[in-house]
């Protein structure tokens, strides 16, 4: 009897491992949550609420796309929310100076890319730790945003543009923003999972020295990732300003923590080298939908914050527990094999 157990456990474990990769777990959890919430929380399952959730999650999702790549290389960018604030403020300044909005929008994205390039230069050019550099630019860019706009808000944005950010495609009830969200997620997903760039990202995160010896220009790769992160933050700066019809220096204040949180919740290792985009996308949906459902269920703000915090700790803990459980099972199997 006892000699059959390891033989049975091996295929079972490998099957379990295939299904129990963290991003599969988080996708399943998200789907389960959406079904349960739709059937138990009043007003949650409506098309209108789905629209609200999508518009609410857009900034976090966009920033998380590039953040996933950066964290996968073992680095971090904490300046994204401040970049959103500064690019938004610059957008307001340009609007006040009579520049056409069609010109302002690409310039804003370009400014974001430049701000990202500053991060990239300090991190890869001077070899400084990304945590320190981007905490610095987090404060610096937010401060500059106040220099640009001071305590004023620019709010007279044309309704054609602000309406688009909240509008839907025809009468379908599908928010306009869904199209760019899917397109950008597809592009980043394909780059990460189907191209040499993606493989270089994981290699640089898993072992930068080995990656460098195998011909990957780790520094240049990381530098471009920061440029991309800045450009994305510039794009979010445009979206945020138009969606709230308000360019203010404190736009997106504190959003960087949510972005890093969903990337970790999505299963990307903070030490680099591991993690997949679908998990991160599911994490964005899960976190936004959870907060929405709790609000609809009249849960108090304090409880909401506590639940969100607990979820994030569980997310960081759970993959480690899964690995530990796998190791335990394997070593028991080895012991069983040795005792035969």
């Amino acid at each position: 009897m006892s000699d059959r157990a390891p033989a049975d456990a091996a295929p079972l474990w490998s099957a379990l491992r295939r299904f129990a990769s963290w991003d599969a777990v988080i996708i399943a959890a998200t789907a389960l949550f959406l079904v349960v919430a739709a059937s138990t929380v009043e007003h949650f399952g409506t098309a209108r609420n789905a629209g609200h959730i999508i518009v609410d999650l857009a900034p976090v999702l966009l920033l998380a796309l590039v953040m996933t790549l950066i964290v996968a290389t073992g680095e971090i960018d904490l300046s994204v929310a401040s970049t959103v604030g500064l690019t938004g403020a610059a957008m307001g300044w340009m609007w006040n100076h009579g520049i056409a909005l069609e010109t302002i929008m690409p310039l804003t994205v370009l400014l974001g890319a430049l701000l990202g390039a500053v991060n990239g230069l300090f991190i890869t050019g001077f070899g400084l730790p990304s945590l320190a550099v981007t905490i610095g630019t987090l404060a610096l860019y937010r401060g500059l945003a106040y220099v640009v706009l001071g305590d004023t808000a620019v709010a007279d944005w044309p309704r054609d543009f602000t309406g688009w950010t909240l509008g839907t495609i025809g009468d379908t009830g599908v928010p306009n923003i869904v199209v760019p969200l899917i397109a950008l997620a597809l592009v980043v997903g394909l780059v990460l999972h189907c191209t040499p760039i993606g493989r270089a990202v994981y290699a640089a995160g898993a072992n930068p020295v080995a990656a460098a010896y195998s011909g990957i220009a780790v520094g240049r790769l990381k530098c471009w990732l920061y440029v991309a992160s800045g450009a994305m933050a510039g794009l979010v700066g445009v979206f945020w300003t138009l969606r709230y019809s308000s360019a203010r220096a404190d736009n997106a204040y504190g959003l960087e923590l949510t972005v890093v949180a969903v990337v970790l919740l999505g299963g990307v290792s903070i030490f680099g080298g591991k993690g997949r985009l679908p998990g991160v996308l599911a994490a964005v949906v899960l976190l936004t939908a959870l907060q929405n459902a709790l609000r609809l269920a009249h849960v108090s703000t304090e409880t909401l914050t506590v639940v969100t915090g607990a979820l994030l700790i569980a997310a960081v803990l759970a993959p480690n527990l899964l690995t530990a459980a796998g190791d335990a099972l394997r070593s028991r199997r080895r012991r069983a094999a040795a005792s035969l």
Partner: protein
Amino acid sequence: MSRKRLLSITASLLAGVLIAASACGGTTRGDDEGDGPTGTGGTANPDAEYRTGLSFAMLPKQVNNPYFEASSTGAETVAAELGGEYEFTGPSDASASSQVSYIDTLSQQATDVILLSANDPNALCSSLDQARSGGSVVVTFDSDVDPACRDLFVSQVDSAEVGLALLEMTAEQIDGTGEIAVLSATANATNQNAWIDVMRAELESNPSYADMELVEVVYGDDEDEKSFSETQGLLQAHPDLRAIVSPTTVGIAAAARYLSGSEYQGQVALTGLGTPNQMREFVKDGTVTEFALWDPTALGELAAYTGAAAASGIITGAEGEVFTAGDLGEYTVGADGVVTLGPPTRFNAENIDDFDF
């Protein structure tokens, strides 16, 4: 593709977009003269009764703020009196974007009366439009939005009166001479900025304030620790400072705590807007001589009555309409749909024990 080629392609693409935009005449400031929905429409019936069973929700700038908790008590009393449901909900950070999510939630729950203290005059508009087209009455209190985005605004007091009262109290406490500084809430806070503007204008124009100088305005973001350290910073940066004016309940309490434990206690005057319960110990230990505030509980009551009156068709928000707000008495709607509570109350060692909020 080489890096140089990538760069040059990107650059030329961008240049192309820019040229196209300017050549084709893009959208610039002033092109758009669109206007939002205005007024509740319909006609008022001043003799109508208050509807029973209305659902009320109060959405403050942030929860866990004693000031808004007092307003909530007032509104809850009114909701109970009218046989309605009541909910107090809102974000824990004072940002406009988090308020938007809460407004969306309330409009989905088809709340009859939304009582809102806004974190931004414009950012909430599209959500409020949606809520109102779904049948909710939106009454702002304490801090207003663009008048086109709400039905009525219940003002605690006229902003000119607050600014003047703040300056008057300060002048009395420092004999009208010396440097003063302001410890405000967030840099975008609508009413704090209005009061500071009134103070600035009055300092310039009124000869009896000629010897007073406003040297700096700092922002504590309505966070206790930040307000505390901004106070410390002010005193270090301006050794000749005679008085600090903090027109926010969080700021004045933090500043009082710093002053009472420092060498500046009794040397630098502190006044502003605070609640009696927060400030009692500092008035008793001599840190603070006099400060002011309106009664936030009465403000919450009036906001709830105003919302109920609009939801019952007693008023529509047009100038000159009259309604009775329970024990508070009769109120008249002013220009732009503004209802004003009354002048601020001053609190000092003599009367502070008569108040509990």
